[in-house]
C-alpha cells in the first residue's frame, strides 16, 4: 500500500492522478475512523497521500472579491488570522480543543462532510466556494453543492480541495451557536450560524444555517429571501410563522448524543433568539 508524502503541491496533484489515494491532512478524523489496536498501523483500505506539510496550501489572502483560505490551514491558524471573518472565528474558537485545532485543517473539516462539522454552517452562510483542483482543471463549487450527504461530496478521485473562497459581504450581525454535550471539546448536537445586514430597520440581507439537524447543513434560500425587505417589526410580528416554516425543513434524528425533539426545538429557539436580536 502506498503512503506518499509529496514535496510540492504539483507533485501531490500528479500522485493523486496516478493512484487511488486517500487524502490525509491533519488526520484528526481519518486516524480515528481507521484506527486499529494500539501499536498497529491504522487500517486505511487504500493508499494515502499526506498533504499536511504542503506549505503551498497554507495561506490566507484577501483579494477584491474573495477571501482565499488555503485548505491546509489549521483551524487554530485561521482562528488567529486577522483576515478571518468574525463568524468563522466564533465557530473555530469553540471547536474541538487546542491540540486538535493545531492539527485539524479546514480542508479536512469540509472533506469529512460530517453533518456535525462546525465550520460548515458558517461556510454555508458565507456563501463559500470550494475550489477543487486536479492535474486537468480547477473548478469552484458552492459549498452546498459540494456536500451531498453525510461523508458524501462531489469530488473526483484525482481532485483536491485547494482552497475555500469566501465572497466579500457586508453582513454586520453575525452569530454562531454550538450546542454540544458539554462546554468544550464536544461534538455538536446542533449548530447554528446566522448573519444579517439591517439598515434603517429594514432587513437587507438575512442568512441562517443549521448543522447536525439533518444529513447535510440546512439553509433555505427561499425562506431567507422572504424576509429581505421586511422591517424588524414585521419580522417580530411574524416570528411564529417564520419558525414554523423553518420547522418543516429541520428534521433531525435520534442518536446517542441527543434526540430529535430536542434538536428541533433548540434549533428553532436559536433561530428565534437570533431574529429577535437583530
Amino acid at each position: 500500500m502506498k503512503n506518499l508524502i509529496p514535496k510540492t503541491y504539483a507533485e501531490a496533484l500528479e500522485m493523486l492522478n496516478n493512484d487511488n489515494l486517500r487524502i490525509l491532512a491533519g488526520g484528526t478524523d481519518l486516524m480515528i475512523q481507521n484506527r486499529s489496536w494500539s501499536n498497529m498501523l491504522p487500517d486505511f483500505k487504500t493508499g494515502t497521500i499526506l498533504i499536511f506539510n504542503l506549505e503551498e496550501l497554507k495561506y490566507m489572502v484577501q483579494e477584491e472579491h474573495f477571501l482565499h483560505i488555503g485548505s491546509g490551514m489549521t483551524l487554530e491558524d485561521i482562528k488567529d488570522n486577522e483576515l478571518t471573518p468574525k463568524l468563522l472565528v466564533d465557530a473555530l474558537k469553540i471547536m474541538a480543543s487546542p491540540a486538535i485545532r493545531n492539527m485539524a485543517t479546514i480542508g479536512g473539516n469540509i472533506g469529512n462532510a460530517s453533518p456535525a462539522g462546525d465550520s460548515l454552517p458558517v461556510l454555508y452562510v458565507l456563501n463559500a466556494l470550494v475550489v477543487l483542483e486536479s492535474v486537468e482543471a480547477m473548478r469552484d463549487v458552492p459549498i452546498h453543492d459540494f456536500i451531498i450527504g453525510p461523508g458524501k461530496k462531489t469530488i473526483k478521485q484525482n481532485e483536491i480541495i485547494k482552497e475555500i473562497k469566501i465572497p466579500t459581504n457586508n453582513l454586520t450581525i453575525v452569530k454562531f451557536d454550538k450546542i454540544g454535550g458539554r462546554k468544550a471539546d464536544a461534538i455538536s448536537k446542533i449548530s447554528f450560524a446566522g448573519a444579517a445586514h439591517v439598515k434603517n430597520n429594514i432587513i437587507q440581507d438575512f442568512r441562517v444555517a443549521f448543522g447536525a439537524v439533518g444529513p447535510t447543513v440546512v439553509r433555505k434560500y427561499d425562506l431567507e429571501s422572504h424576509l429581505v425587505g421586511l422591517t424588524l417589526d414585521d419580522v417580530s410580528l411574524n416570528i411564529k410563522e417564520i419558525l414554523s416554516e423553518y420547522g418543516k425543513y429541520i428534521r433531525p434524528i435520534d442518536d446517542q448524543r441527543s434526540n430529535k425533539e430536542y434538536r428541533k426545538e433548540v434549533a428553532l429557539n436559536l433561530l428565534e433568539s437570533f431574529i429577535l436580536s437583530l
Partner: protein
Amino acid sequence: MKDISKSVRKVDSLIKMSGEAKYVSDIKIDGMLYAKTVRSSKSKAIIKKITLPVIPEGYHIIDHTDIPGKNFVKIIFEDMPVFAEKTVSYYGEPIMLVIGEDKNIITDIISNIEIEYEEVTPLFENTNSAINYHFTKGDSNKAFKNAKKIIKDDYDTGYQEQLYIEPQGMIGYIEGEKVTLIGSIQCPYYVKNAVISILEAEEDQVRVKQAVVGGAFGGKEEFPSLMACQLAVALRKIKKPIKLIYEREEDMEVTTKRHPAWIHMEAAINDKNEIDGLTAKVAIDGGAYIGLSGVVLSRALIASTGAYTIDNIEVGGDVFLTNTVPNGAFRGFGAPQMLFAVEMFIQHIALELELDPLELRLKYLAKQGDATSTRGKFRDPIIMNDMINKGMEMSDYKNKVKKYTEQGIYKGIGMSWFLHGCGFTGSGEANHIKALVKLQKDIDDKVTILIAAVDMGQGVQTTMKKIVAQILDIPLDQVIYNKPDTDLVPDSGPTVASRTIMVVGGLVARATKQLKEKWVDGEAIIVSERYKQPEYIKWDEDNFIGDAYPAYSWGVNIVEVEVSPITYQVSLVGIWSVYDVGKAIDERIIMGQADGGILQGVGYGYLEVMKNVNGKIQHKNVTDYIIPTTGDTAPMETFLMDNPYPLGPYGAKGAGELTLVGGAPAVALAIENAINKKVKSIPVTPEYIMELMKNG
C-alpha cells in the same frame, strides 16, 4: 506538636510529573506476548460451535478448557465465569484470549474465528431477582395505616462509568510454577485469591504487584481479578510474559459500571404534617452476574433515610440480573443512587405539604444518639447543624434560593446533606477481611510500612507515611511505603469503601505506637496489628439490625447553576462543600478528594449519559460519554470541620467516597430551583429539562 492536617508535598508527584512513573502499559518484559479477548457478539446465546483458523506457531488460544480450577472469578458468589463455556450471558462476555507476539497476526486470527450461536431471548427487564433484602425499623405499617396523607414518588438513576483515564491493564510472567501479575488494581489480595482459586495453586505460587494506578474509582476493585485469572491461566500454559491492556472502547463496553437504579419512595404524613413513616423500594440492575451487587444494594438500602432520622421505616430491594454488562463497584457504592432519591423526595414532600423545605429537613436531621436506619446508634457527635450553617453562609444559600424560585430567572441553587458509612458494611471487616498490617524497622532505622493499600491518586502513600513519621517524630523520608507486592505485604484488605485511612491507617497508627515503645536505635524490629471490631458494635447480617458501620462521615454540598431557557443547557456557577471527615490527615489531599469527588458526583447528576440498547452500551468512547472538562467545572470552596473519631488515626474517618455522594442531589435540586419543576431522574440532561419545562 505540629498539626497532622498541615499539608506536605505528595511523595509520588515528582515522578508523575516527569513522566517516569510506570503504569502497567509502560512495562515491557523481554519476550513479552500480547493478548486480546474474543468476546460474545450476542446478549444471550448458546455457543453451538467454534471454528478456529489454523493457528500459526507461537500463537495461542486460551479458553475455559485451559482452566485448572473451577471456572469462576472468586469474589462472593461462584457466578461469573473467567471464560464463557456453553453459553454467553451478555454482549462482550469473554470467550477466549488470542495470544502471540505480533498484534497483526492476532488480529488476523481473531477475524477468522467463527462462533456459531443459538440465540436465546435476552432479558433486559427487571424481573429476575438474584438478591432480595428487606428490613424495618419501628412500625411503618401503623404509620401508613394512620396516615392523613401518603406521598409517593419514583426516582431513577442511570449508569455511570468510572472513566479512570488509564484503561484497565495487567501484565504477567511465570517463574517455574509461580505466576506474577502486575496490574492497575485497587485490591492486590482480591486478585491473588482469585488467581489461587482459578489455578488451584498454592499461596506461594501467586504473586500480585501493583503498578502505578491511573485512577480507579471502584472500577479497579473487582474487575481486574477477571483479567488476572485469564492471564494466569494463559501464563501456566504458554510460560512467557503476557500483556493484556484494554483499548478505551473495550474498557467502556465490558467493564463494570455504576448500577442503574429505580427507587420508589412513600411517606406517611400524619395529621400534624409530620413524616411518620417512610418506605423505599429499590431495584438495581446487576447486569449478567451478581459480583458485588448485593453489597451495593445493601449500602443503598441502609442509606434510605440519608442524613435524617425517620422512626418508622420499611426498606427493601432487589438485585436484578439482566443480559447486560455486569455492574460493580464505583465510588459511593449504592449510596449515590439512594441519596439522590432521598434528597429529592424530602424536598418534594415539603412542596407537596407546602412546608418550608429547609425547616422540614432540619426537623428530621439526624442527631447524636438517634437510631440509624438499621436500629444501630449514631454514637459520635454529629455537627451537621454547624456544617449546614457554614455552607449556607459560604454560598449565600438562603437569599439565593428564595430569589431564584421566582419565575424567569433560570438560576438555581441546591443543597444536599448526606452521610457516608465508613468502611465495610456490617461485619465485613471483622468476619471477612481481618486486616493485618506490619511495620518493619531496619538497622538503619528506616521504617517500612507493609500494607496492601494502593495509592491510586488519592494520596495514601503520603498520608500513611505522615501518620508513621508524626507518631515516631522522624522525618518523612525515613519512612518507606512501596507499592504493594503480595510477597512482601500482609493482607490489610482492599483499597475500597473509604476504609483505608480509618481502618488500615488506624492499624498502622497502633502498630507505630507499638514500634515506638519497642524502639531501639540500630536494631531491626517488626511489629504487626490485626483488626479487632470494637466490642460495642453488633450487626445482624440477615436482618439488617445493628450498627452497619463503625463511624460516619458527613457532608453538605451546595451547587449553583444557570439553565439556559433557549438551549436548556446547565452551567455550573459555584460549588460549596462542608465536610466532617473526623480529622484531615493532609488537608490538601482531602481538598483534592473534595474537588475531584464532587465534580464526579455533579457530573453524574447532570452530564454523564450512558445507556444500553438491547444490551449494547451506546456511549462507549470518550467522545460520546461526556465527562466534565475544564470548561464545565466551577469555582469550588470547601470547608473542613474537625470532629475527631476516637478510633481513627488522629481522629480521621473516611473521605474518599463522601465527596461524591452528595453531588447529584445538589445539582438536581439546583436545576429544580431554576426551572421550578420536579426532577426525578438523573442525569438531568438538557433533553430532560426541555421535557420538564414544556410538559412537566
